[in-house]
């Protein structure tokens, strides 16, 4: 196996995979239990321990059989995936088609630690539209190391919503490579609640004029969870906007990481890049590390990022109190508001409802 990255690599300075490398993972066992599926009226693919379960899945007009790995990428986790990948969705939406929604469920369970490496491919033809809703869930100790290869052709629109609710003993590493052509868009949102250690790494290339990338995330972590959201947006053509909102709420001894790099090539004039990351530390032992990075080689650009980490704004707490709301209630209201704002980038109603319910139940457990 390709070696796991260590913290000596700049891109991995905040995420230590030693707890993962300390475990020896077996091949995934067969599963008999049926996972709990959300009540969403969309076609679906259900993977159990990384293998497609035909009985639980429905058909989808634009699905093709799993194909062997093509591009391997350069990220270490994608290289490992390339060595082991055995299954995954392979979607090709023809030009001009509105393919609606598809649900992708990954459920995992097993007695001994095991690993699986899904390799998914999503390709949208010119002017096509498609929404993928992904749910990751499971029980026990396992490692899901997924890769998505995404291609969005001219004028196409791909929405990708992920709910990562893996077992808190599990590991989830997901690497996404997206090539986005002119006038096309890739809208991404990951809500992370699960995993002991998780990392979502997205590399989005804006290849034609007016290509758009929205890479958003929210993480709600507690206990000793570690969540890492790492992105690189490469502006390789003029007039491309990119937007990012990343919110983290950290309780217990949780640690959150956001690394967001925006690269602007010399040709990419009129780039409009904006990135905001905010973290709320709810306990004295929580930690947040943020590395927003700009690398700019074009002069006529508008790029900015903002980051805040801290407890609640005392000015806001006082305002609420001066209107008669007791301090404890005032704090709760503000935390709730912070969480709800995190869902703002989700523009797809069914997904938003799903996320809101999850958020509500996380909140009631705190």
């Amino acid at each position: 196996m390709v070696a796991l990255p260590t913290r000596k690599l700049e891109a991995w300075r905040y995420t230590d995979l030693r707890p993962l490398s300390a475990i020896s993972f077996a091949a995934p066992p067969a599963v008999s239990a049926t996972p709990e599926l959300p009540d969403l009226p969309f076609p679906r693919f259900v993977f159990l321990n990384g293998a497609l379960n035909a009985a639980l899945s429905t058909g989808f007009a634009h699905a093709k059989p799993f194909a062997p790995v093509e591009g391997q990428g350069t990220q270490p986790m994608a290289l490992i995936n390339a060595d082991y990948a055995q299954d995954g969705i392979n979607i090709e939406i023809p030009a001009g088609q509105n393919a609606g929604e598809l649900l992708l469920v990954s459920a995992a369970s097993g007695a001994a630690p095991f690993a699986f490496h899904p390799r998914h491919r999503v390709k949208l033809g010119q002017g096509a539209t498609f929404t993928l809703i992904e749910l990751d869930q499971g029980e026990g100790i396992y490692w899901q190391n997924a890769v998505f290869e995404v291609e969005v052709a001219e004028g196409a629109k791909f929405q990708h919503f992920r709910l990562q609710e893996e077992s808190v003993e599990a590991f989830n590493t997901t690497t996404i490579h997206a090539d986005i052509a002119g006038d096309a868009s890739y809208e991404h949102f990951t809500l992370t609640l699960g995993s002991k250690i998780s990392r979502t790494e997205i590399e989005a290339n804006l290849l034609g004029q007016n290509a758009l990338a929205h890479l958003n995330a929210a993480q709600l972590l507690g206990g000793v969870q570690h969540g890492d959201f790492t992105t690189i947006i490469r502006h390789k053509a003029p007039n491309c906007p990119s937007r990012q909102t990343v919110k983290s709420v950290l309780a217990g001894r949780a640690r959150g990481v956001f690394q967001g790099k925006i690269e602007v090539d010399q040709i990419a004039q009129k780039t409009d890049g904006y990135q905001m990351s905010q973290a709320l530390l709810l306990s004295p032992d929580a930690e947040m590390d943020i590395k927003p990075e700009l690398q700019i080689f074009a002069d006529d650009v508008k790029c900015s990022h903002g980051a805040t980490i801290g407890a609640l704004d005392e000015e806001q707490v006082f305002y609420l109190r001066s209107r008669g709301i007791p301090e404890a209630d005032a704090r709760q209201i503000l935390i709730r508001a912070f969480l709800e704002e995190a869902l703002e980038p989700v523009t797809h109603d069914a997904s938003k409802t799903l996320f809101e319910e999850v958020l509500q139940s996380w909140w009631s457990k705190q």
Partner: protein
Amino acid sequence: MSTTTEATIQELAAQKYKYGFTTDILMEEFPKGLSADIVRLISAKKSEPEWLLEWRLKAYEAWLKMEEPEWARIHHPPIDYDALYYYAAPAKAVPKSLDEVDPELLKTYEKLGIPLNERAALAGVAVDAVFDSVSVATTFRDTLAKAGVIFCSISEAVKEHPELVRKYIGSVVPAGDNYFAALNSAVFSDGSFVFIPKGVKCPMELSTYFRINARNTGQFERTLIIAEEGASVSYLEGCTAPMRDENQLHAAVVELVALDDAKIKYSTVQNWYPGDSEGKGGIYNFVTKRGACRGKNSKISWTQVETGSAITWKYPSCILQGEGSVGEFYSVAVTNHFQQADTGTKMIHIGKNTSSTIISKGISAGKSNNTYRGLVKIMPGASGARNFTQCDSLLIGDQCGAHTVPYIENRNSSAKVEHEATTSKIAEDQLFYCRSRGLSEEDAVSLIVNGFCKDVLKELPMEFAVEAQKLLAVSLEGSVG
């Protein structure tokens, strides 16, 4: 831009580095290259005590085992450390008073606009002049001595105040801290030493002018400033070098120590020779600057205007240990032609209620690359810590690069960290507005750039602020059109 203005700018650009002359003076140099023997020779030349030689040799050993850092966004051909001279000094004995200073040297400093003659000196500014490796003159020593302030070259301090030097040297930047700091610790030849005793407010601004003159010489000065309880000082440094086709290495170390309620303000106008418009020559400025706010409510403030050097690699930092201590970093970094700058700061919050402010303005023009790299780290014990960071980049032309690499690490939930960064260019309508009011394009750019840097420039002491504004204009000549 019209052809005539273009021509004028070309002309201006050609003559712009006005400090590029050399001084013909008999120099004493040690053989080329670095070895334990050279380290011993430097130490012996300065009649240093045994402990300091030991310290240097340890640093040299550490350096041998280290590698040049590669993480910064800078590129240069490998430096041949064996082709450098590690010690160069005017051959005449160190002068005891200003009257004994070589007239050629005095002329050099006159040309630089730094009169060492006290009567003619800038009112209220005491100057230490460092020529290549050694301090050649320190002014106003008596006035300062009356206030109890020690301001001298570090070589003298080693002789006259060994207990102070021994106590503090390497206590902020350890000998093996990083590659260039280790090199400096092994071979540093001179630099300034400042000690402000308890309760004393230094009666005048202190300043050091650094000048590299000799060819193929590395300059490795070391500055140590200590402000005891309740003391305060404002210190300025200026740097120039001749125009030479080869690159020259400058690897300095600056250490600041502030005890309870002490305040140190350290301002730099760095105008080392940046190389020509083709990227030939210029200084490699690899500098380690760090301040320790050891005492409660102490304050260290770094202000820098970096316009020179072919390559700048420096991160003036603050270790905020004392409760309620304050760190500040105000920076303007301008790069033009083929210059490369990778600069920023580290604010390490250890004590309770510590606060830090970072304001960084990067301006890139020509084919240059300008990177802000900074770390804000809040340790678990730093309850109530605050940081505010603002980094803005301005691009002039589409051949240059502007980069921002902030690291923000917060391990205390009662701390608050805020960071903002923007990148933009000078807007056409701003330029047009200025020009329609009669300003030339060059003047308009200069005006807008000065406005962009205002938050930093206002932190400089008055005499320096004016100088810095002029320097910005000169550095950017030939950048628009």
